[in-house]
């Protein structure tokens, strides 16, 4: 089973759970994928285990970072329909606001699509898309 087949099946049913199930780390974060027309959103449902700072409390920066990377990879699997996973070349994360103990959403912008490398901007937000809690900028090497 390759990823483009999974994406095709998910698209037909608009049930993206099988794609999340295909990536153990995404399953560990209990991610959800929501696709409405051209709009792609990846969701990190809040769970106590995602807390980094229990005093505030705030999401762990490592959890937010891992979520951003998953969102970018899922976006590319949907957009590029490659059989294998893209490989992360580098990942820059700007943490802009405290991640509150609530659900987090991620939207993705393809900044540049090259033949082998794509550059993505991934924005994570909670209360409103214009108040991002974290931004990811990253280059991915496309899979076959």
């Amino acid at each position, binding site marked *: 089973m390759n990823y483009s087949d999974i994406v095709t099946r998910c698209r037909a049913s608009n049930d993206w759970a099988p794609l999340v199930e295909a990536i153990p*780390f995404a399953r560990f974060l209990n991610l959800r994928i929501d696709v409405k027309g051209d709009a792609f959103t990846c969701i990190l449902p809040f769970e106590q285990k995602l807390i980094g700072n*229990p005093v505030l409390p705030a999401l762990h920066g490592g*959890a937010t970072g*891992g*979520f951003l990377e998953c969102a970018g*990879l899922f976006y590319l699997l949907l957009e590029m329909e490659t059989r294998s996973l893209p*490989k*992360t070349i580098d990942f*820059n994360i700007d943490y802009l606001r405290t991640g509150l103990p609530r659900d987090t959403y991620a939207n993705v912008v393809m900044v540049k699509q090259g033949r082998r490398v794509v550059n993505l901007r991934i924005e994570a937000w909670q209360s409103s898309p214009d108040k991002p809690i974290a931004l990811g900028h990253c280059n991915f090497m496309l899979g076959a």
Partner: protein
Amino acid sequence: MTEIPPLNEEEIARRWQKFVHVSPYNRELNLQSDVVRPDWCAIKIEYQDALVGDPQTGVLHGGVITVLLDVAFGFAIFVKLPAFRPMATLDLRIDYLKPATPGRAVLGGAVCYKLTSELAFVRGCAYHESPDDPIATAVGIYMFTEGRPVISYEEVPR
């Protein structure tokens, strides 16, 4: 007066373990403090099937490297502070040089190379055996924040 012998490295790392597990996310991933020295702090994660990024290869997800380095960066800063201060990650950059080898534990090591009153600058890498053969290299900037520290400074082993 009896002189107290200095603690060996394993004992110091073991005593720092409770600070790793202050964070629920670190507990969930079972991160371990491996080395805690002013010139190098390393956090370890055992290979876990649940953390794989690509089942076709068995390689751990990049998000695992991210948390490992984030925690090591925090330790590398804490170990240089005269007293704990709450802080937040401002930014983090990770370059992936090669995939982690499936089945093997990964270490995230770091050093804080510049401290100012408001910021801490750190660099480090993820590796199996040696930082000279890195899986990923990383730099980060952390900002000290207001509020109560997550961990109190009592009994911090030095």
